């Protein structure tokens, strides 16, 4: 048997089989069986007929949507200014945005909790707001970086050409810069939206006692119902797949540039 450099991939392939493929098979098995091990679709239909599980999906969606929008609104101008200005300290400022990510996330949320407590008085009064603020705080760098990279790599000649042809600053931005930075936006949105749907630790720590997808799955496993829990995980997985398929093209265009900085 001849060995080639491809053999170097074997350890990782083994890793994938044990830790990714095998658990997925278990997930499928549990999702489509009941307590007696018989095949059933009941877990599936239950999820889409129970107003509470559907409501959880809706609630997670709302939090994720609002978080993504807020992140986008805050991140785009920041990234734009950062990328287009001729600041000599550009990289230092960028560092300042990335730096919080080096601190453990639960520590950051604990600090945020105290700050919010001072501002809001009683934290428990604004559960939805807390969740959005916490997630925005947590995921902001993931939005800034891809947008920053896309804009900073735009060919400046394109903008100059638009100006030469008579477009003013606003028109240049709307017709040239914004459309060309879409790949960065899409990349940022997918990096914020998906984790925001399941990151229930933020809700727990900021006193929002309504379940989102992550905590709902957890509650099924805590009640020894692996079948229902697996089905919800699977549904979530399916949604992520659809989302990735839809955004796949855009991210190819972004060329994974955002990831290079992280």
């Amino acid at each position, binding site marked *: 048997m*001849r*060995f*080639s*450099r491809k*053999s*170097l991939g*074997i*350890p990782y392939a*083994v*890793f994938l089989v*044990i830790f990714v493929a095998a658990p997925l098979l278990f997930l499928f098995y549990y999702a489509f069986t009941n*307590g007696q091990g018989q095949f059933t679709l009941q877990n599936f239909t239950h999820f889409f007929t*129970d*107003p*509470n*599980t*559907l*409501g*959880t999906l*809706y*609630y997670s*969606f*709302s939090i994720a*949507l609002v978080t993504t929008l807020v992140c986008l609104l805050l991140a785009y101008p920041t990234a734009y200014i950062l990328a287009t200005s001729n600041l000599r300290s550009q990289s230092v400022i960028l560092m300042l945005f990335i730096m919080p990510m080096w601190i453990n996330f639960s520590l950051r949320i604990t600090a945020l909790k105290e700050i919010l*407590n001072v501002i809001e008085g*009683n*934290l*428990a*009064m604004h559960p939805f707001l807390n969740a959005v603020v916490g997630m925005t705080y947590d995921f902001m760098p993931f939005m800034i970086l891809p947008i920053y990279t896309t804009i900073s790599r735009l060919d400046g000649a394109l903008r100059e050409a638009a100006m030469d042809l008579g477009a003013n600053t606003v028109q240049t931005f709307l017709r040239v810069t914004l459309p060309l930075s879409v790949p960065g936006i899409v990349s940022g949105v997918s990096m914020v939206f998906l984790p925001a749907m399941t990151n229930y630790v933020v809700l727990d*720590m900021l*006193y929002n*006692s*309504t*379940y989102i997808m992550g*905590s*709902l799955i957890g*509650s*099924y*496993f*805590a*009640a*020894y*119902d692996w079948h229902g829990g697996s089905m919800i995980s699977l549904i979530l997985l399916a949604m992520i797949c659809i989302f990735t398929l*839809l*955004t796949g*093209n*855009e991210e190819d265009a972004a060329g994974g540039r955002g990831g290079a900085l992280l």
Partner: protein
Amino acid sequence: MQSNFHKKTVFSATLASMLSFLFLLICLAGALPEGFDAGSLCMEANAAEETVTLRVCNWEEYIDLGDWDEEETIELPSGDIIGENSMVEDFEEWYYETYGTRVKVEYSTFGTNEDLYNMLTLGDVYDLVCPSEYLIMKLMAEEALVPLSDAFFDRSDENNYYSRGAAPFIREIFENSQIGGEPWSKYAAGYMWGVTGLVYNPETVTEEQVSTWKVLSDPAFARQVTIKDNVRDAYFAAVGAIKSDLLTSEAFLNDPDYKKNLETEMNDTSPEMIAQVQDWLKDVKDNVYSFETDAGKADMITGKVAVNYQWSGDAVYTLDQADEDDYTLCFAVPKESTDIYFDGWVMLKRGIGDNEKKQHAAEAFINFLSRPDNAIRNMYYIGYTSVISGGDDPRMFEYAQYCYEAEDDEEEIVEYDLASFFSENPEESDGEFVIEAPAEQLNRQLYSQYPPADVIDRSSIMTYFDDEQNARINQMWINVRCFDIRKASWWSRILVIGLIILAVGYFVRRWHRNKA
């Protein structure tokens, strides 16, 4: 060129096989037979006969790890107690000295009863575990446990510290509570126990207000109370609040079968009851500051909340911490009923099997933890109350005196009778277990750590839910905790659906364009 290529191939092949081998080794390490230890392979041949491996799984932070400061020494009339080494190391040494056999304890921990149960179902094997009473009941019902040996109950053996020292009223509960016709005591030995109650801030809350579970849904404390984030504790409080009038009525209290009736009422899981609990908990959800497992202690100490549903062991910790900041908190047990809970040691069939040496080591481990000085070390370290009252050994009571006996210059002193916990015969106790405590301790640490007789009288055990009850109650919990889609406002629906359509439409259009 040819030789260069050859070198590369050999190099990558070697590297690949080394990596795979390393990886396989790591994977296998978890699945190796017990007692396998790469370093001691050569010794294995000689020592295999003599070393017993005991796999113990306990709650996190639930045993003394030793390493105390000199000044932490507990000075009792019967001698000083200090934790120098960890309890597990001390046990290994003690077992070798006492029985002449080496035992190696593989100690691991779990976070919740549900985690432990899932770990066991997934195939983790342990010899000795320490779940709460309801999981013990579930494991008993599933016939997963090995009964304690007759020798364990032999009170003439000096080393049987558990049988000789467990508190009489707790032994009684263990003997009288049955699952499938068998008493708990046949399979389980208690470790720590406590009751549920309310930690409160006496400056903003009156004793009257915290004398009932209804305080949790009281709008006067909107967003000022916390409740436990687990369905069992929440359910218990709900039943207590809903049945408050019945449970505190004269007729109910004076019924000769009071205790039995109380347990029936508190373990009511009829569909009607579950529906009522659901409504009550929904109100509570809109009224509480948080559903918490751990954060409540800190929120209580920092004054963010006024009332905190708490287990008595953690209540002691909370009150202690607050004292350090010169901030006074109190503990109350509602008048309706309180959930009396135990954590206990049980041996698993899957681990012990019929290995007598293992079983002996496991039972010795329980006994070692029940030796009064060790029980005191654990109590000091954890803050919970040990089930050990000491029997002939005076040290357990001395420790209670050491903790709570009033100083000479104390102004107000009250007599607090601990006979219900320490005495073999509480009704005829002649005051030998009375502590002269500062009056303020009546609703503070002393009260939490050693609840008085009237609290024990109105305590109820909460039995485990069988599969059917479990499914219904979990559904109830999900109904409480989840957002009901029917309650979504019309503008938020339009917003969410509109945004989804916009996003999907955008991507589909781009996708089409890219294809063209």
